[in-house]
């Protein structure tokens, strides 16, 4: 009945959804932000620790939500580690493209490897109501990096 949904719910996503990586508080975080999708009830709190020169040393999150939002946050915390805030933001832009259109023609170059890791989430582009589940974590990361202290939503 649901075999064709394996494109959306690839094994990687189900796995990260069930057992999200970096699912913990960072007590010594330099930046935190909350993300909320009021419509879905997805909620997360993101923690970022920076190195002395401002790169992302560690990222972790806690929260609850659908498999897509949890998997996306989990994969994000893995891929942004070691990135400068600017690179993390650029990666987020690429990812939003991927989530909305299914491809990202300009995503080669320095971030190619990271984009490959995020590729399993590209299936959401066929599900307009689910795109924001995938992008919530990245909106929250931007809010954390800006240090605006505002709650992020992907509305």
């Amino acid at each position, binding site marked *: *009945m*649901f075999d*064709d*949904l394996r494109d*959306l*719910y690839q094994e990687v996503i*189900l796995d990260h959804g069930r057992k999200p990586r970096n699912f913990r508080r960072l007590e010594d975080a330099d930046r935190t932000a909350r993300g909320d999708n009021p*419509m*879905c*009830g*997805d*909620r997360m709190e993101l923690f970022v620790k920076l190195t002395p020169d401002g790169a992302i040393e560690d990222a972790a999150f806690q929260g*609850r*939500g*659908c*498999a*897509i939002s949890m998997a996306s946050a989990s994969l994000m915390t893995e891929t942004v580690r070691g990135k400068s805030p600017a690179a993390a933001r650029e990666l987020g832009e690429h990812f939003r493209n991927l989530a909305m259109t299914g491809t990202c023609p300009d995503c080669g170059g320095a971030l190619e490897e990271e984009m490959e890791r995020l590729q399993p989430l590209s299936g959401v582009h066929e*599900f307009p109501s*689910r795109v924001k*589940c995938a992008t919530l974590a990245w909106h929250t990361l931007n809010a954390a990096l800006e240090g605006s202290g505002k709650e992020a939503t992907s509305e």
Partner: protein
Amino acid sequence: MNAPIVNPSGAPVFDIERIRQDFPILAQQHRGKPLVFLDSGASAQKPRQVIQAMVRCMEERYANVHRGAYRLSEASTADYEAARAAVARFINAADPREVIFTSNSTAAINLVAHSWGRGVLRPGQAVLISEMEHHANIVPWQLLRDDKGIELRVARVTDAGELDLEDLAAKLADGKVGLVAITHMSNVLGTVTPAERIVAMAHEAGAKVLFDGSQAAVHRRVDMQALGADFYAFTGHKLYGPTGIGVLWARLEHQERMPPFLGGGDMISSVTFEGSTWAEPPAKFEAGTPPIIEAIGLHAAIDYVSAIGMPAVEAHERALVDHAMRRLSDVEGLTLLGRAQDRGGVFAFALDNAHAHDLATLLDRAGIAVRAGRHCAEPLHARFGLDGGTCRASFGLYTTEGEIDYLAEALTKAREFFA
């Protein structure tokens, strides 16, 4: 598929296949699968009779109402007022003037909160709602509380999803409650509240009563004269009518005491720059050009369900509820929210290994439309520890037992998918 439902005289009155043919949208396929529309609680599909009545209005009898002394405007005014009379008959109101047209339930409840709430309730009095309210029957009272210094009380819901009448009584006891504003049927739990009991308890304590009948009016015959409430709100689009029209039934004595809510054309008797006088109720509360075409559509919808007969609609739904209760209880890992004795065809549920949104995406793939989230009842989901939301299947006239079987089967497969 369904056993024919038999009325007391023994004749089958509910021909589901014929009913389904009245709803053009139900013929749709979704990825090669028939559409299984289980979101009628959010908004119902429309029968051809409603669609055609609205088209006919625009093609043949349309002009603004209450304004022109020419044939078309007179025809349109007559049709608009005939719609009001039809609503009055449908809910057995004592007088058509008790029927105020609004844009939906939300607007109807806000009208009471703004006008009666600000004009008649006094600071220090309380409004008593329940834990199972839709946001439309929570937020207007919070606004009133913040604006006017009234108290907002919340009656509890039991674990079975029923209104806790003891708690309701306790919260009425000090006589400070000026209004009990409660749903007549929960849009999440399906619970039908004991409306007559609530009216008796409230009136005994000196409080007026508003029912949010958005769900109940669709599923049962509601009778204003028998019920004896003060205000009753419902919305056209859930009753197989168009969007953009709702009803506030309000006793004339309350309408007399209520200041206008919106000001403008149609609600005045005379205007000078020094001041204005108001039209008689219900026009006083219908400022501006009303939803004319929508009123015609609502009239057609009421004629449609009345021809089938609300008792038959209710019997069909009762059979569906019993069937769904059996079939959904058999699905492993499925939690049903609410097990009220008296309930309508609304089932909120959660699967133990899938989030509501993931589940809804799967069901969509199977052609099944259900709602996922908190269904505008966030406090109720918090009450049951389901902040992440639930999926909700809600039934209409055209829902079949076969569709419920298909849902149960899809839920079992969905659980395997996420295993």
